[in-house]
């Protein structure tokens, strides 16, 4: 049997929106779509896949790498080896994809954002998104894919019939890795998701001593200061101010990105802003592809000039 298998991602009872990209790619592959789901009460559109495979495994255990392989053993036993296994390009999606590749000795391509029209090769980004590579799987055998959020959801075509339902229960789970609890980020007074105007600083700021002047700038602009991941990693600003996949998703009226190159994880957290303005010294920075307006230049000089103009 020839089919595409989607390993869905459900987080705290919610069928994650990024599963839509797994579905979109699966529909483009034009083969029967089987979707594997963890236990739980959450709505899933029954016209998106041909077969829903329900399990009795709770979501926290479902996305543990060894468990998903043990479950896949059963899936393969019941339905045969899928042609393509699709997961989301998320923390757990990529974690599981890598382990599946090693466990079943399968090729893996992550963060896939395109495919050629014959469905023979897949595109993925390289070198800070400045170049894409086109990857072929020489054996054309089964392949494991993780898909970039937002890349394929436009290709979903609803089926005319509701999906068939299958059930797999009683998988013997792994005891080497145990889920303990979810940990929430500490609550702080700052809520960047509520701001109408964000001034966001990135790696380009250079060093910590430049930051107080951005505080002053946001003061005169009546804006809120946010940042990209590298700034948080260096402990220059608290995690609560981070925009991006692992931080906050924001939709302000204006998002002024300064010294942010535009890694996809960052774009995922701000692309729906009403107006995006980017300041970057690299004219080829990917952020300019998503921005409405851009200034090619030194962010610190722009900052100082803005302050001067506003005070004068």
């Amino acid at each position: 049997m020839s089919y595409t298998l989607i390993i869905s991602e459900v987080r705290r009872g919610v069928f994650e929106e990024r599963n839509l990209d797994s579905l979109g790619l699966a529909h483009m592959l034009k083969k029967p779509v089987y979707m594997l789901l963890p236990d739980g009460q959450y709505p899933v559109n029954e016209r998106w896949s041909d077969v829903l495979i329900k399990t009795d495994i709770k979501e926290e255990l479902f996305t543990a790498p060894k468990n998903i392989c043990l479950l896949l053993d059963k899936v393969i036993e019941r339905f045969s080896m899928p042609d393509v296994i699709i997961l989301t390009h998320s923390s757990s999606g990529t974690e599981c994809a890598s382990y599946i590749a090693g466990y079943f000795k399968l090729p893996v391509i992550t963060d896939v954002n395109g495919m050629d029209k014959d469905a023979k090769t897949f595109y993925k980004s390289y070198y800070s998104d400045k170049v894409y590579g086109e990857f072929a799987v020489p054996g054309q055998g089964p392949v494991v894919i993780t898909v970039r959020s937002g890349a394929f959801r436009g290709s979903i075509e609803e089926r005319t019939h509701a999906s068939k339902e299958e059930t797999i229960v009683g998988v013997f789970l792994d005891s080497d890795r145990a889920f303990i609890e979810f940990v929430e980020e500490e609550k702080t007074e700052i809520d960047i998701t509520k701001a109408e105007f964000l001034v966001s600083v990135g790696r380009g700021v250079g060093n910590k001593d430049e930051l107080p002047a951005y505080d002053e700038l946001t003061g005169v602009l009546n804006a809120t200061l946010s940042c990209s991941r590298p700034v948080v990693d260096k402990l220059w600003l608290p995690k609560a101010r981070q925009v991006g996949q692992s931080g906050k998703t924001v939709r302000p009226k204006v998002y002024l990105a300064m010294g942010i190159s535009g890694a996809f994880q960052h774009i995922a957290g701000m692309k729906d802003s009403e107006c995006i303005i980017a300041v970057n010294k690299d004219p080829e920075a990917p952020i300019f592809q998503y921005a409405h307006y851009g200034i090619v230049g030194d962010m610190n000089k722009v900052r100082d000039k803005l302050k001067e103009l506003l005070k004068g």
Partner: protein
Amino acid sequence: MDIIVLTKRVPVTQEEELKIAPDGTSVDLSRVPFRMNDWDNYAVEEAVRLCEKQGGVITGVSIGDMESDEVLRRAIAMGAKDGCLIESQGVVNDPFTRALLLKGFIEKENLSFNMIFGGVQAEDDQFGVTCGILAAMLGLPFASMVIGIDEIQNDAIILRRELEGGIQERIKIKMPCVLSIQSGINEPRYVSIMGIRKASKVERKYFKADKYLDGGAGSLIDVIRWFYPPKKEGAVILQGELEDTCKQLLGILKEKGVLQ
């Protein structure tokens, strides 16, 4: 606590213009600076901190040409005991092949370890799967996106994994295990030129990659072409001197109603 840390030498491309050869078969990196993959920097630091507390030995391992020796020197300067370079002909693009090489190397050279660390992903290929494939091949438990190690027990470790939207999961994982370390887990120490120079005196070990690919499994995936990302409409670039562009910017802010 003996830890193997996987490190990779990568091009730093954030602010570089990259040229693809006209036939699309290669990307010119000849004028791009290289350094240790940023995520690996955090992985080495985390290993060093653990060993400082618990005792133990850190071994840095890298796949690449002789130039990759520089990341091993850096790992040693940070606190690794020694460094092993698996010398490969050309770049190994397929993470499956990289993992296979590492498995062969670790097993054939009898490297002892309680844990294997690597960065979450490499800056150049952004694959993020080498550690996971290696773990599965070695039959070891695995966790990725490790953003905090809370407790080391006799035969297990309690850690936090980063998920999306500021949420983490706390898990318990048995040792030996493989962990991929997320940036921001610590603040990597500063490495001085003197430190690197001192590390250069520690002998590194060099191995030929061919020895470790049983039957030459080769790559499961091939890059057949490089190309530039399709251009979207893109931003309207404000033109003029600094003062002009800044005035235009303030005009846009007023127009959008966020500035009086």
